[in-house]
């Protein structure tokens, strides 16, 4: 049985802050679509890192890169979400993020066109199922964005 707590208790405030953090997403342009990455999983946004292709990789995997002495896979965000080509010929931005659950997080990077802004997306606003790390879609100020599920992205299984 859950214990009742006054709404102004520190633990409730902490829960609310944690929930708010969970709702915050970074909007990133990838091709002709906008994606939303959970902000708590975003480590850094940097100018495009050098990507070294990996022979035999699927089209979603751009290759490998290095950041701060750490090797990590670079995913082509546009291909990951099935976006069409955008105006940029090459992805000028790399988004460094954590994938997987908090207790087993894995470093990953996304090649993208631009980091746009931080918005709040409540869990109930995400509609439709996704695959390959996409939780679904949400409407943000009239624009449909693809919401990523970075925990699912690091689950086992081949994307084919």
């Amino acid at each position, binding site marked *: 049985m859950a214990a009742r707590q006054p709404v102004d208790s520190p633990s409730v405030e902490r829960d609310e802050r944690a929930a708010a953090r969970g709702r915050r997403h970074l909007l990133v342009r990838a091709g002709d679509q906008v994606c939303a990455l959970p902000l708590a999983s975003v480590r850094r946004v940097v100018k495009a890192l*050098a990507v*070294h*292709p*990996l*022979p*035999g*990789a*699927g089209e*979603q*995997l751009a290759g*490998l*890169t*290095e950041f701060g*002495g*750490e*090797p*990590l*896979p670079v*995913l082509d965000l546009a291909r990951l979400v099935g976006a069409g080509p955008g105006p940029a010929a090459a992805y000028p931005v790399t988004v460094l993020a954590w*994938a*997987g659950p908090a207790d087993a997080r*894995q*470093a*990953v990077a996304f090649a993208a066109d631009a980091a746009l802004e931080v918005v709040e997306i409540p869990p109930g606003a995400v509609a439709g199922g996704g695959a*390959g*790390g996409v939780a679904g879609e949400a409407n943000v100020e009239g624009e449909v964005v693809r919401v990523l599920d970075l925990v699912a*992205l*690091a*689950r*086992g*299984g*081949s*994307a084919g």
Partner: protein
Amino acid sequence: MSLGAAGPGLAAAALGRGGWVVLERGGGLWGVAGEDVRGVGSGAGGLTVRLAGGELAADRVLAVVPELAVHPVPEALTRFWPEAAAGLAVHGDRPLVVVDPRRPPRVLAPQDEGPHLAPGRESAAAES
């Protein structure tokens, strides 16, 4: 110890010892544990690195290094890359895949044609 680009002689330095042999193949870097290397030879298509259980093809041996900080292979990689690997690491400023000698990636498979380890061309052999 990073000795720069060289051929079989460089890799031979790692035979029977610890450390790692850093290979270049298909535009990527690959790390092989020195203790797994049994011999290195040159052929028409580049180098052949002989392991206990098979052979690897390489364009060149980039370096032999005493240590690599090996990171686990993230699921986000295996999801989109249908090969096995023992880990990821960095050599210089370039990422590399640490080869699982039992299941090397196809890009490291020796070509069917041409010599692999022609007699007399082996630079070293650690098998006894």
